[in-house]
């Protein structure tokens, strides 16, 4: 691509950016907000909203540069333009997407950082201190998200190895899913750990917004109004649809009744799993990916979680973490240069080495996210404390932490 400004690409990327914002606020907030006890609805919604604000502020102070600035030893970017100084004024085109302004690429990437951190909140709802979350967001963004984003997308060591992560299977879903698992081990099990959604209708609206916004997430990751964006949009939708059908089938086979929450969960699993592969695979692959993702996530949530006994409240690891792993490996299997001429393809296209790179990325990023998140969590636990007081947890967080309530009796 020649570095020439394209108004078409710029228009599409502006829209995509707005779509991804909608995924976090209010999409994810509502998806999570419907699933918890009514006494915690405002706190749960608040976690996504406050995360979006914190990341938005930090992203332009230093975040973008550390992820996408000039590479230092494959590990982190250079902070050349603190406070995004001079970038907007100069109006230069992005080196990652040479037909759109650098500012647009940066704000598009900001939306990814925001939703990644917000995703983790689903695991720790109903018992984590709000103040501890306020400390967790900047620390996790800085210590975990920015390095991983740099490794995979910003010219870091995995990028140099040619890892395939079209829209964030590794950077978004794996990193947040594994991070969530590490954090719940520290935050501990809720006194009332039953999943009895107080308002599934919220989750229906949330899932609809996530699905809709995901077209900005995945098709936007084509970084232009191109054929690749069309292809990414179609496989994304196909995988979501197949994921929903597969989870409903699992419901029917395992507990006897199709459930709406199952359908929503399957759609999210399908969407998350296709994410790293969205710009590399065809419809047949998307059908397989969507189906496999739901079946594996179903068992992770309904069997693995009770077996090990961690309290990942809204299954951030079970759905996003697993989807990140499955999707990243699937990209190494199903990626084809017929869809995306910029790559050599995966196992089926005769490039088995790609699967090795994908596996390495999953293992290293997974380990890094787990260890770094665990350390951050431990530090916060020793200083601020992660867990709310027992009576606050029993009575609900809305009244005790915010002096507000979601519903009048």
């Amino acid at each position: 691509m020649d570095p020439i400004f394209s108004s078409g690409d710029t228009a599409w990327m502006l829209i995509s950016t707005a779509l991804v914002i909608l995924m976090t606020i209010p999409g994810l907030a509502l998806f999570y907000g419907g699933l918890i006890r009514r006494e915690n609805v405002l706190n749960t919604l608040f976690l996504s909203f406050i995360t979006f604000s914190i990341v938005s502020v930090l992203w332009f102070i230093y975040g973008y540069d550390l992820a996408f600035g000039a590479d230092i030893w494959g590990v982190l970017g250079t902070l050349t333009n603190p406070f995004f100084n001079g970038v907007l004024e100069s109006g230069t085109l992005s080196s990652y997407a040479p037909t759109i302004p650098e500012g647009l690429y940066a704000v598009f990437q900001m939306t990814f950082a925001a939703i990644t951190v917000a995703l983790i909140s689903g695991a720790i709802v109903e018992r984590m201190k709000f103040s501890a979350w306020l400390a967790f967001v900047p620390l996790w963004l800085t210590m975990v998200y920015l390095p991983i984003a740099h490794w995979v997308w910003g010219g870091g060591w995995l990028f140099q190895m040619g890892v395939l992560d079209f829209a964030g299977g590794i950077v978004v879903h794996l990193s947040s899913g594994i991070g969530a698992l590490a954090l719940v081990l520290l935050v501990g099990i809720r006194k009332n750990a039953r999943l009895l959604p107080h308002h599934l209708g919220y989750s229906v609206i949330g899932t609809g917004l996530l699905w809709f916004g995901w077209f900005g997430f995945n098709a936007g990751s084509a970084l232009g109004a191109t054929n690749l964006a069309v292809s990414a949009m179609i496989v994304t939708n196909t995988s979501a649809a197949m994921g929903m059908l597969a989870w409903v089938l699992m419901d029917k086979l395992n507990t006897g009744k199709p459930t709406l929450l199952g359908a929503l969960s399957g759609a999210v699993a399908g969407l998350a799993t296709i994410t790293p592969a969205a710009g590399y695979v065809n419809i047949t692959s998307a059908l397989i990916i969507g189906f496999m993702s739901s079946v594996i996530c179903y068992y992770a949530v309904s069997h693995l979680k009770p077996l090990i006994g961690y309290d990942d409240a809204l299954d951030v690891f079970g759905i996003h973490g697993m989807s990140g792993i499955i999707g990243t490996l699937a990209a190494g299997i199903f990626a084809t240069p017929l869809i995306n001429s910029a790559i050599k393809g995966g196992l089926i296209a005769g490039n088995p080495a790609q699967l090795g790179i994908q596996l390495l990325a999953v293992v290293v990023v997974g380990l890094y996210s787990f260890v770094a998140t665990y350390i951050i969590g431990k530090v916060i636990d020793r200083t601020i404390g992660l867990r709310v007081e027992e009576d606050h947890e029993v009575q609900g967080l809305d009244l005790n932490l915010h002096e507000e309530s979601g519903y009048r009796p």
Partner: protein
Amino acid sequence: MKKIMTIIRPDKLEDVKQALEDIGCLGMTVKEVKGRGIQLGITESYRGKDYKVDLLPKTQVEIVAPAEDVEAIVDTIVKSAQTGCIGDGKIFISPVEDVVRIRTGERGKKAI
């Protein structure tokens, strides 16, 4: 005088109210309550896991009436609240010693 305390399905409240009105029984106190019977509620299933929900929302209607009206009222409630399925509820009848109308201080039957 008797107190008729009855637990019914929340969605049957309008039918019961109308039926009682039709036989001239107007006064009542209604509460939203939760409870369970010998069937111990129902099972709900989320993300592959079953949860027992053993307290279900019910509506409690309380009526105080002269003893001679009790049979008619009970008949009316049974007819209007009945679906024939598990969870239709129950009626409890107990004696009432006295009734006082606060506005006038009247006592007994005429205060009902």
